[in-house]
């Protein structure tokens, strides 16, 4: 599954309604696959590259690119090791990643709440 940007996603404004304190949307995790990686890791201590690939139904290249972006942002930790002669990559959610996901959830809920009030 390729992470194609969809029209709705591109059209989203960066600021959210005043009700939520006008925080900025975390563009980094607004992308579907990156959001999926953080969500999956939020309920697992660690997941391997292959676990995430199957869970999120994506390709090696796609997952690798998006996971690296999350790693660069400090949202996930990546540990590479060998199991026998087979390389193994494990991902773990950092405290910053968990906070970012929680903020994002609050953000989405605030958007929905603000729209319902209208």
């Amino acid at each position, binding site marked *: 599954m390729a992470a194609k940007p969809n029209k709705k996603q591109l059209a989203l404004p960066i600021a959210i309604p005043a009700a939520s304190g006008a925080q900025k949307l975390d563009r980094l995790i607004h992308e579907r696959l990156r959001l999926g990686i953080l969500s999956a890791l939020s*309920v697992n201590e*660690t997941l391997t590259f292959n676990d995430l690939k199957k869970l999120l139904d994506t390709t090696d290249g796609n997952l690798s690119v998006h996971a690296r972006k999350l790693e660069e942002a400090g949202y996930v930790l990546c540990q590479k090791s060998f199991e026998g002669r087979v390389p193994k990559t494990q991902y773990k959610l950092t405290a910053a990643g968990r906070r970012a996901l929680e903020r994002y*959830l609050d953000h989405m809920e605030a958007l929905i709440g603000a729209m319902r009030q209208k």
Partner: protein
Amino acid sequence: MALPRPEPVEIHAHAMDNLRYIRRTIERAGSFTAVPGLGGVLMGSTALAAAWIAGPRTANLRWLTVWLAEAIVALLIGILGAAVKSRRAGMPLLSGPGRKFVAGFAPAMIAGVVLSAVLFRAGLGELLPGVWLLLYGAAVLSGGWASVRVVPMMGACFMAAGTAALIWLSAPGDVFLAAGFGGLHILFGTIIAIRYGG
């Protein structure tokens, strides 16, 4: 030039869609690591049957044989349940979290086997219900630590039941075994089955 603002309905729908996606992913990832709920219910049912068949006398060989048979049956149900659940989630049974569960679960269970043999031979069969519940709880707690919260919580409840059984040695052991391996498995198995995909 500023991007044109989308209609509020679109933002609202998109936010809902994102929340649904997060929920689906979490459920799928959670159910993948969690123990099988329906398997737990079935294990609880066979434990209740075992408690009824074995009776309260903890010092005889028949009692021990019934519970050993129950342990093997429960183990098979657990493996089969986990395999079915993993297959449904499209994940291999012994992938990262699966392996971690086994690695955390096995040491306390091996300790349980050794202690069972030693205590039974020493004529301390009345300690076995408490020891089994305590060590099984420790195994589930450490094996399920990285899983959804309900799994380590179940382990903690088993440990509490084991502690109670060891404190109240005068109470019939089958009551604790039925409440623990029967009741707790059925209770938490139902929760896991409903909330974490079977």
